[in-house]
């Protein structure tokens, strides 16, 4: 069986229908476990107090905001190279999910920053590149809506996605590129010494898994919707021509 079989819209819809209940239940279970554990059953941080509980929303949302763009980059490249419509529609379907996660990361970051840094916002490398990524998401969504021909829209949004990838990469590695600004370094590390304490780390892993699975579930359901929207549009055109 080849991955390209899922480029067939009918096959994609059937597979998504079969997978969605499991992914949705797992997403809800992981997200609720992570958030309830993190909010109710973790201690305060010695420096940040109870604001550390925002980590269970902020870090997974920020991580998935960047990963959503990465997924859109891969599917956009597949569209540009192989012209599979499902691939372009999957990128379109992921954008509203990605922009919401970016907004969650920006809002929780600002709320967290106010008591810790004394300001809601700073033109810090990571924050600024994240804001630009958010604007790229809005531009990407606007471009899909602005162009009537779906293939032209897919072409142009794919190119925009390629350009925006620079800021997605910058968002992730800004704290490594520039040792300046208010934002701390990476929260998660493979180095045990640099990683956060297990008491925060394990519920955070559940929360991250929840966000990943929620993203997968939402992209599947939204891609199905986009495929159906295109099919409906084709039928309505044929009816008008007849």
């Amino acid at each position: 069986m080849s991955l390209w079989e899922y480029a067939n819209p009918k096959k994609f819809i059937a597979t998504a229908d079969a997978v969605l209940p499991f992914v949705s239940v797992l997403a809800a279970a992981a997200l609720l476990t992570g958030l309830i554990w993190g909010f109710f059953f973790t201690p305060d941080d010695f420096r940040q107090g109870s604001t550390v509980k925002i980590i269970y929303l902020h870090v997974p949302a920020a991580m998935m905001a960047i990963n959503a763009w990465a997924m859109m980059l891969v599917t956009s490249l597949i569209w540009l190279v192989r012209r599979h419509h499902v691939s372009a529609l999957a990128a379109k379907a992921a954008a509203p999910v990605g922009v919401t996660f970016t907004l969650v990361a920006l809002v929780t970051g600002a709320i967290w920053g106010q008591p810790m840094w004394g300001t809601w916002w700073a033109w810090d490398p990571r924050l600024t590149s994240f804001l630009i990524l958010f604007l790229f998401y809005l531009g990407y969504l606007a471009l899909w809506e602005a162009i009537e021909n779906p293939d032209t829209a897919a072409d142009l949004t794919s190119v925009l996605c390629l350009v925006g990838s620079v800021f997605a990469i910058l968002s992730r590695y800004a704290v490594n590129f520039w040792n300046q600004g208010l934002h701390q370094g990476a929260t998660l590390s493979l180095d045990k010494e640099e990683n956060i304490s297990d008491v925060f780390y394990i519920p955070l892993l559940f929360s991250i898994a929840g966000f990943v699975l929620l993203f997968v579930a939402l992209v599947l359901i939204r891609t199905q919707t986009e495929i159906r929207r295109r099919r409906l549009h084709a039928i309505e055109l044929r009816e008008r021509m007849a």
Partner: protein
Amino acid sequence: MMPDLGKYAGTVLSAYAISLVLLVALVALSWWQARRMKRRLDAAETRYRNG
């Protein structure tokens, strides 16, 4: 049951409230659009088949 959030209660609760509202709205909108589109397509396909 409610943990003691101390002087940062407003900060933590507002972060959770805004995030959960955004996430629930996204899920609800995606689900509603999916159902609506499926219903519209089913109706259009039936109409198209019956000429």
